[in-house]
């Protein structure tokens, strides 16, 4: 069975979280690091926006500042996500794109990796399914959103899929920092966000699952879905240095966050 590296659950600011993803991606591309899975939390709580989004269209910047919520732009497309420190756990899967396990079809590759999350959720008592393009739903409600990119900064193309699993949902806080298009909501004929989105807490009848348990369940889920063995590891010194550089020059820089 293939062995991948797994990093322990970390908590970082948003720019560091995104910088670590790109640092690992770059090292895998260079052949210096193995395929890697990591889980992480966001402190301070933050909004991440997709590569193609306009920060002004998606984020209430003043509200973020007044509430101490950070803002970062991802290298993946997709929507604006509120990463609450207590409300969700985020994962990243970083793998060589030519790995035979990874389907070439984008939606199939989303489905494969999301199956890991589905197994993980099942492990803690929640039934969930994959909803193309890249959502995981429990019943009819979204419990996980995911996004991918494929990049070749060095020798090989590497796929990054990252996403969140909602542990607990504070709808009022989420919409106090995000701007949501009325057209998007009205298109689904739904007035209340609670009808579209759910959380682990809600699905388990108001039970909060601790982060270590969530992390362990996700790791077992990914191991099963991808038929891989996970070997506990840490960021290399080189990855840490590159992450510091990416944070300073890109993810923590206004030019990047406010480019659109």
């Amino acid at each position: 069975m293939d062995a991948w590296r797994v990093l322990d659950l970390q908590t970082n600011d948003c720019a560091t979280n995104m910088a670590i993803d790109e640092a690992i991606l770059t090292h895998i591309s260079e052949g210096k690091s193995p395929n890697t899975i990591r889980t992480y939390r966001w402190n301070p709580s933050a909004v991440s926006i997709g590569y193609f989004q306009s920060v002004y269209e998606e984020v209430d910047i003043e509200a973020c500042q007044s509430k101490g919520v950070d803002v970062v732009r991802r290298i993946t497309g997709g929507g604006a996500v509120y990463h609450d420190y207590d409300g969700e756990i985020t994962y990243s899967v970083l793998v060589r794109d030519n790995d035979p396990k990874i389907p070439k079809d984008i939606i199939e590759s989303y489905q494969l990796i999301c199956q890991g999350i589905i197994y993980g959720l099942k492990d803690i008592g929640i039934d969930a399914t994959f909803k193309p393009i890249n959502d995981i739903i429990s019943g009819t409600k979204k419990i996980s959103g995911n996004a991918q990119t494929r990049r070749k900064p060095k020798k090989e193309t590497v796929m990054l899929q990252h996403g969140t699993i909602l542990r607990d949902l504070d709808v009022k806080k989420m919409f106090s920092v995000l701007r949501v298009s009325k057209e998007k909501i009205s298109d689904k004929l739904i007035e209340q966000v609670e009808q579209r989105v759910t959380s682990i807490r809600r699905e388990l009848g108001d039970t909060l699952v601790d982060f270590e348990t969530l992390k362990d369940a996700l790791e077992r889920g990914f191991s099963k879905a991808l038929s891989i063995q996970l070997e506990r590891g840490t960021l290399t010194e080189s990855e840490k240095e590159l992450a510091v550089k990416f944070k300073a020059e890109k993810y923590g820089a206004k030019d990047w966050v406010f480019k659109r």
Partner: protein
Amino acid sequence: MKNKAEKKVPGGKLLRVTVETDERMSKIVNIMFTGDFYMHPEEEIHTLENSLKGAQIDEITLQEIITNFFENEMIQILGAGPEDFLDILITALRG
């Protein structure tokens, strides 16, 4: 003159455009597509936008530019299609 439009693609994602034209509304001066769609490689959005800057504002020209862009087999789009990009641009230009 700056115009905007947005579209929730049925079964897909939200697509927006902000387009700036010259005073006579004969050419696109600046353009930005935003939204929660996916494009691979991501940086190609700038290629699309740059190819539309300076373009004559007529539907056939704009359709040709957008179609040619998406005919590049290296480019993949999820959550919106070439027709959605054209549709939203025309909607914005019509004011």
